[in-house]
């Protein structure tokens, strides 16, 4: 436990002592902020139109602002996750510091968990930027906080799975760019798999759609926890970390 914390703290420090963390935070804040003001602007204009035409629709902040924005955040995350995980092991392999970690009295799994938690923590910081925008809604409106909280839980679970896969890919190479590109490719695949269910309902399409990380987010975005979605994410996390552990083991055999 202590070792996990030691590694995690070291990783967080190196994220924040290099420009990478600040760059990611700034980019995420800018892009998400753009989405947010678009959504709010649209909402306001729509509301005004409704009043003018005398329509009696109900306007709901949760449905019309928060949910689409959470969906956006879930996709946006796919672009940021490779940049978070690509250095985790590739960098250590390139500089040879992996030799220090692997010959210290810590278990492989502690190293892996430490790094994964650090990546998750950085992603949580990104999400915090988006949460600031939502705080604005609470100041001027009266949205329901529960679906929002569940949405964030979903975002974290989804990121946890992808970060675990990214960590795994990072153990495969000593080149950060390759690790990043491969992770990015995988993230995109897991996103677009969802599209096949749009035109085909054969078994293979169902399977592919099931594998898509984004389809499993839909219910979280609505504020509903389906156990099958949660189980899916937890399985991805477990598999990702498991593969990382195996890869580290074989790293010793191959290197």
């Amino acid at each position, binding site marked *: 436990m202590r*070792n996990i914390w*030691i*590694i995690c703290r*070291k990783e967080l*420090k*190196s994220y924040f*002592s*290099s420009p990478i963390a600040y760059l990611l935070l700034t980019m995420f804040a800018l892009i998400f902020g753009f989405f947010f003001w678009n959504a709010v602007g649209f909402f306001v204009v729509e509301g005004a139109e409704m009043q003018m035409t005398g329509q009696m629709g109900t306007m709901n902040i949760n449905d019309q602002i928060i949910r689409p924005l959470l969906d956006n955040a879930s996709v946006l995350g796919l672009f940021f996750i490779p940049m978070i995980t690509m250095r985790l092991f590739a960098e250590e392999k390139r*500089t*040879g*510091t*992996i*030799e*220090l*970690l*692997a*010959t*210290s*009295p*810590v*278990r492989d799994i502690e190293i892996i968990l430490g790094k994964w938690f650090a990546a998750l923590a950085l992603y949580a910081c990104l999400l915090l930027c988006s949460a600031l925008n939502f705080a604005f809604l609470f100041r001027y409106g009266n949205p329901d906080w529960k679906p929002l909280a569940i949405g964030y839980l979903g975002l974290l679970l989804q990121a946890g799975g992808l970060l675990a896969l990214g960590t795994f890919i990072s153990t495969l190479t000593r080149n950060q760019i390759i690790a990043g590109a491969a992770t990015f490719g995988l993230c995109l695949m897991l996103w677009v798999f969802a599209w096949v269910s749009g035109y085909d309902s054969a078994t293979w399409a169902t399977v592919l759609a099931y594998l898509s990380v984004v389809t499993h987010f839909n219910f979280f975005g609505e504020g509903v926890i389906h156990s099958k979605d949660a189980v899916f994410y937890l399985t991805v996390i477990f598999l990702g970390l498991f593969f990382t552990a195996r890869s580290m083991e074989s790293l*010793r*055999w191959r*290197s």
Partner: protein
Amino acid sequence: MQAVNAARHLRAVDNLLPTQSNFLSQMITVQDLTRKYAHTTAVDHISFSVAKGQIVGFLGPNGAGKTTTMRMLTCFLPPTSGTAAVAGFDVLEQSLEVRKHIGYLPETPPLYPEMETAEYLRFVGRLKGLKGVELDKRVDYVCGRCAVADVKKKLLGKLSKGYRQRVGLAQAILHNPDVLILDEPTAGLDPKQINETRDLIKDLAGEHTIILSTHILPEVEQTCEHVIIINKGRVVATDSVANLQGRARDRETVVLEVAGRGAPLDPARVQQRLQRVAGVAQVRIKNQRNASAVFEAESRRGEMVRGDLARAVIESGWDLNELRPEAMSLEEIFLQLTGSDSAAAAAGKQPSEEAASAPQAAKESGAAAKEPQR
């Protein structure tokens, strides 16, 4: 002959079945350790053992398999076959215990460029299980010992090569491990720091068991008690340093600079004269100037010719500007150990088996073989 064979046989059995006390006093035991890469066998069935408190030099040319062996001892690489035990723990089965007992300086110091020296040492200390006051004390201590106190607040990425090496060494001794495994610890250091590092290593011996690798022969002579020479993944010899020196010196190469007294010098005549000195195998002219010339004289096996050479020069009325024994290069020792003199190799290998496990005996025989003027 039969008696000798019997004795050898006994020794072999003894080695295979270490007695309890023997086993405990061995900090590192390596049996038939082999490591294969895709196309190469980097380490090929090597066996040796290191007693507690010894400093052992691991000597070999580039690509001999020193780093690979050390990586196996530190549990970084698993062996393809064979076993290795450090501090009584198997590197495969009880890897975590082994790692608790070792300090390791890899070939390239494992530094995080974005960390400051002190911060890095604290991180490593925590990783090795130090905490609280103990951690602070050890970090301060190693900073002093390895002379990195003045770069405590500097980013590791901005340190010079020598300082990186020092921080790497500081990192290795941080948790006061029983066994230190140092891969070329003095690479890249300045002469002063090399000396200090050697002193440090000598100081650490006794309580600590140290294996250090190098391809610099004098380094081994100055720091180590025992030496394991490997070449192409095989142990060529395990011996005490004294023995090795004796063996290296049973033939010498001497460099002389001879000057004519007031008159120009005829190098060919000097060469002829030197050639006639008893015990000299051959003399080469290395370079010549107006008034002086440099010669290289090689002695026959078992002959010491320095004194006779000097006398010959002086008596012939020339000046002797310089006379020094040429340090025997590692390659020459290899040639001697492995090459044409198979007898020497065999003689070298026999005591080698017991050299590490019976240091006392080795030392005595080594002292006998040692040259008086050294």
